[in-house]
């Protein structure tokens, strides 16, 4: 497959992936910072480069509802949103997963109101973590593109049939231009393949009902099936990644360690912060500090075993949450990482809530975390379980 080096924003990378996927239906509503993605995609359609039916709706609730209808009719369907848009989609997100409709959605992560804010954090994605959507997380524009192409295959696999969210940080990834590779249309077309729905409303030879009333005698069984599909999606995610890596040469796993194997202290994070942390780790390594990173690429299904195996040799771990659970034990990622380590390891794990509403997460903040970790590794003592990093006192 031929490739080309281009400079694209994260949103342009997502729009380009969507163009190459050429979904049958896209129903979306503009919201910052997703807007430029849908503008670019709509331009491809308006220019006649692809033949997607773009449904312009009056809200995100309608956008996801139109996606559900189109997907139930057997179409390959995509949408995209951010923040309040996802919040408005919320009830239909559960329905998309519940009806087992393989809708794929880039989610350009943004803080939730209020007070109103348009910048990055992960509160939107964490709000739908239990909705039955698979969640992939991108560190940069290249991963936005790569994850989206893989997401279609994962969602539509007959053993999965679940919707997929591809997360990437608002503005930090969505609006920053990066060098990345794109691949030729024919090759991507072949990789993505054709969607063959299991059931469709538009098959008069096999009429079906979607959305029937599910009483106590069947609802539980249907929810159990979703959990099973989530479990089964792990193998599909791995297989699709392997196939994709043969095309692009980049490896995709559930998690990715950076200088982690011989590390003594490490942070766990999602999204673009991992990129910043790589620079900090390289600096620390030069000073002889054995620092590492664990990046979570797949948050749902949650790769519990892989996470526990990759962290258990460490002396101290910090989990970075760009979302607050407001007086739970810690942030949502922290809770799950600690649960994954329970009875497998007794290493100290601390939590940092950072970057809410786009608060900058710079080298200084990450250095601060590693300095704390070095102290914890030395003494074994945790001063503060959850720290609000970068908030003004």
């Amino acid at each position, binding site marked *: 497959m031929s490739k080309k080096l281009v400079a694209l924003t994260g949103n342009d990378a997502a729009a380009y992936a969507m163009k190459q996927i050429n979904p049958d239906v896209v129903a979306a509503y503009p919201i910052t910072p997703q807007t430029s993605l849908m503008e670019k995609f709509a331009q491809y359609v308006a220019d006649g480069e692809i033949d997607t039916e773009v449904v312009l709706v009056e809200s995100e609730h309608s956008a996801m509802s139109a996606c559900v209808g189109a997907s139930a009719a057997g179409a390959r369907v995509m949408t995209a949103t951010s923040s309040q848009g996802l919040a408005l989609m919320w009830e239909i997100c559960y329905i998309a997963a*519940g*009806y*087992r*409709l393989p809708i794929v959605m880039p989610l350009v992560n943004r803080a939730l109101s209020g007070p109103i804010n348009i910048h990055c954090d992960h509160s939107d994605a964490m709000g739908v973590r239990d909705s039955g959507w698979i969640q992939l997380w991108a560190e940069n524009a290249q991963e936005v593109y790569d994850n989206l192409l893989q997401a279609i295959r994962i969602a539509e696999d007959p053993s999965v*049939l679940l919707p997929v969210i591809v997360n990437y940080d608002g503005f930090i990834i969505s609006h920053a231009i990066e060098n990345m590779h794109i691949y030729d249309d024919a090759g991507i077309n072949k990789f993505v393949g054709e969607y063959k729905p*299991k*059931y469709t409303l538009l098959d008069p030879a*096999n*009429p*079906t*009902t*979607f*959305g*029937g009333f*599910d009483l106590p*005698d*069947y*609802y*539980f*069984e*249907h929810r*159990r*099936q979703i959990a*099973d*599909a989530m479990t089964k999606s792990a193998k599909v995610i791995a297989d699709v990644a392997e196939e994709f890596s043969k095309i692009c040469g980049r490896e995709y796993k559930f998690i990715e360690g950076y200088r982690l194997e011989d590390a003594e202290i490490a942070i766990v994070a999602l999204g673009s912060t991992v990129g910043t942390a790589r620079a900090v780790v390289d600096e620390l390594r030069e000073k002889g500090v054995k620092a590492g990173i664990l990046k979570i690429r797949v948050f749902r299904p949650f790769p519990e075993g892989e996470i526990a195996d990759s962290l258990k040799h460490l002396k101290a771990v910090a989990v970075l949450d760009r979302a607050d659970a407001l007086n739970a034990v810690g942030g949502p990622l922290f809770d799950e990482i600690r649960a994954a380590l329970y009875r497998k390891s007794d290493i100290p794990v601390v939590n940092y809530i950072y970057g809410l509403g786009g608060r900058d997460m710079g080298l200084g903040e990450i250095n601060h975390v590693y300095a704390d970790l070095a102290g914890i590794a030395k003494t074994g003592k945790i001063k503060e379980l959850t720290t609000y990093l970068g908030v003004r006192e």
Partner: protein
Amino acid sequence: MAKTEKTKAPGWREVPIGGVNPEAGNAVKYNSGTWRTFKPVWFNDRCTQCYLCWINCPDVSILIKEGKVAGIDYEHCKGCGICAAVCPVKPKKAIEMVKEEK
């Protein structure tokens, strides 16, 4: 509720996914006519065979025999009253709503 469903209900591995019902028209097997507070009563001697009740019934519960309205399917009628409301026969309608007896 199912009259014909006597065996153990299927486990989660056997149920079609997504709550999809792949069996068209299977409501015929179920008695879903247990919700009514009022029931429609059809009077053959007043009926003009205009079919307005049959066209408007949302539950396909107007019985047709040999091309003619022949009564109400009480196993599926929900008692919504649309048939009686649209019945154009005067002075007395051919379908009247009567309180269900417990």
